[in-house]
């Protein structure tokens, strides 16, 4: 029998497995992204959503392959532009739940400008970035979150560049919800994603998701992560101090704001012909 590629028309109460398609991921064995996929499907089930009412939007890269591995509507666009595509979709179809999947290259490098403006715009999206500090799909080049001394073919001896700090950037740019998750704890990750979806406005979840192929040392992340020792704050000043002094392995909700989400103007429904009077002589 052919594997089921799209969601069945009728599902009583979708379980996590109902959000998972039959496609075999292109990821390497041991990739953190498998667990992120599992976490997303769990979160969607916990939220009681139906696949046809959820869209997963992505750009290009290992993590951006996720839409096809779900049974939701998917949009696998061009490199770096997942946030604009998701913004257009959510603005045009506010009834949908829109998740955006990205990686540290797609989201923080080529798509960096959109990250700033999506945070600032605060439209109701959930942005999940699988950060492994490397370009995996192109086989091992340094990304904006790569350590300055990590040596590679493209940057022998390291880039010498300071890492990008996505959580600080998100806070400064106006994101309404900021969390860090770890792929090695799919249940915890699922809970954080579900919380992010529930929170109105632009929610950002940075997921530490190891690349065992090009960054095998990241297997050790499981020994370094720890629950954030503090409660979420709605005070951006406190959140800024917390994030600036963060060791990069605090897991949990780090900021939870209360800014009203973006709503584009509109709503009235005149007939198009009624606009003609302005041109008539």
């Amino acid at each position: 029998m052919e594997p089921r590629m799209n969601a069945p028309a009728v599902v009583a109460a979708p379980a996590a497995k109902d959000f998972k398609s039959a496609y075999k991921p292109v990821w390497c064995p041991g990739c953190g992204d498998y667990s992120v996929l599992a976490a997303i499907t769990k979160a969607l089930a916990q939220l009681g959503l139906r696949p046809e009412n959820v869209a997963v939007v992505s750009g290009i890269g290992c993590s951006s392959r996720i839409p096809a591995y779900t049974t939701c509507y998917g949009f696998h666009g061009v490199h770096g532009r997942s946030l604009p595509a998701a913004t257009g979709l959510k603005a045009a179809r506010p009834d949908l739940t829109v998740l955006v999947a990205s990686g540290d290259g797609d989201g923080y490098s080529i798509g960096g400008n959109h990250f700033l403006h999506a945070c600032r715009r605060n439209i109701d999206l959930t942005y999940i970035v699988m950060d492994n500090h490397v370009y995996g799909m192109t086989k091992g080049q340094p990304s904006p979150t790569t350590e300055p001394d990590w040596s590679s073919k493209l940057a022998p001896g390291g880039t010498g560049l300071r890492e990008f700090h996505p959580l600080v950037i998100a806070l400064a740019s106006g994101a309404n919800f900021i969390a860090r998750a770890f792929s090695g704890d799919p249940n915890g990750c699922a809970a954080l994603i579900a919380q992010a979806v529930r929170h109105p406005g632009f929610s950002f979840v940075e997921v530490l998701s190891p690349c065992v192929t090009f960054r095998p040392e990241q297997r050790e992340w499981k020994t370094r992560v720890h629950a954030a020792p503090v409660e979420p704050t709605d005070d951006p000043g406190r959140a800024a101090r917390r994030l600036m002094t963060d060791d990069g392995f605090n897991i949990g909700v780090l900021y939870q704001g209360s800014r009203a989400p973006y709503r584009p103007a509109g709503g009235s429904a005149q007939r198009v012909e009624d606009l003609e009077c302005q041109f008539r002589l």
Partner: protein
Amino acid sequence: MDPRTSVSVALAGSGGAGVMTAGNMLLEAAAQAGYYGLMTRTSGPQIRGGEAAAMLRISAFPGDGQDDRFQVLAAIDWQNVGRFAAELPLGPESLLIGDPAQGEPPEVFTRSGARYAPVPLKALAAQVSGGWTNMVALGLLAALMRLPQEALEGAMRKSMKKGLDAGIAAARLGMAQAATLQGTPLAPPPATAPRWLITGNEAAGYGALRGGVRFVAAYPITPATELLEWLAPALAKVGGTLVQAEDELASINMALGASFGGVPSLTATSGPGLSLMIESLGLGVAAELPVVVVDVMRTGPSTGIATKSEQADLGTALYGLHGDAPHVVVAPNSLADCLATTEWAVGLAESLQVPVIVLSDQYLGQARAVVDMPPAAKVSFARMKAEGAEGYKRYALTPSGVSPMAIPGTAGGTYVADGLEHNERGTPSSQAADHLAQMDKRARKLAQLDPGDAWASIEGDGETALVTFGSCTAPAREALARARAAGVAVRLVSVRLLAPAQPERLKRALQGVKRVLVLEQNHSGQFLRYLRAEYDLPGEVRSLRRPGPLPFRPAEIHEALEQWSRA
């Protein structure tokens, strides 16, 4: 002087002189008096305070081309106005009006042989408390054309929110001055039919709404900004949504995202923005997402001359996408046609599930004209939508190439819209057979397109043909009328559907033609090279072209046709 069926006047001055305000009122006054009219504009690059000129042609017949020369050039001051000399052609029959307090007119204007008439515009304005110099000039120009005073004052009442009494008093002083000058009276206006006063950018925006667009992503760029600014409140009124994007990479992707959501979408830009959007237009082709991009072309390459017109994005629009990426390119060929062609573009995008580029330009976009009321909206072509079903194939290989599209929210219709090559289900595939099948499918959609008569405007007959597109059409039409009046038969083919090419249709349109003159406003002959690549043009082929910003004048096209027919 005998009345003319068309009178061209220009009003120039430095920033803050109010030449555009006065120009718009003069156009409105002509419209109220029952005339047709056109106003194009030229300006320097300054944000405020730069030199500018309003160029008007008031006529007893419809049309949106400028004439060969201006009968009157009035200047509030001469500061830097000489920079526009090439755009303000004058002749010995022309009248130059300037304020002697502002010095003599520049030699670049007087050498045309135009008569100079000094009029103390500023001193006259000073006679009225709160009087403005541009209103004196407005009254003077209206009176030189013999526009009725009540039409002018009616237009002023309609446009002026404050200072109306002073404005009218100043305009009357200007009108009185006209009595001392030789005017250029207009022939009586034509019988009144319902008419609109509209810019090309507004027409394109309204056409988009009529076509069904309900989502617009906007990033400001000259000269497309007014299109987006017109759409912002208009969209809100009809229940649509406009989002200002952070750049053009974002605006095109927002439009694609909204289109994926089932909402007809559009963005507008100019050359630099089009270049940024090109990669994502390829995504629109591959994922089969309808979207319309209006490119209001300006002078390039790079930043070029941002405020002035050129037809040099044709190559980018046709060939800019990487890979084999069948899409649609259309070009409105008059100001009013910006409405019909943009409306059509939305229908083509939606029904073929393909990106459509609309090539407008600064000349059409920023010109304001009195046009016959465009016909009521035709029935729009709709997107073929899918009901969800087990085993739904988003990219099914249908005979037409168009396959039903499931809109998010439809149960059992979920799929991934993907820029990766895919099979019928939308599953990524790197197999040769899937690539070939999907390439064939996407090409088939355009091959099966039947544009009917809309593909081109074809007028006249004869063994000589003038083939052009876009804003070159207006002066071409006028040149043809003159050639016809002089006994030379010429036919006009103004191509509206640039891609997919229509070789059979052009062949029929050019049957019996021995000479083809290809007219375009760019340096390298992009349209000529495109025609040569797609068609076997009959007989001898010549090119008449130059880059922007100077629009073609009917006389130079007529001259080229005359010379050739004599040869």
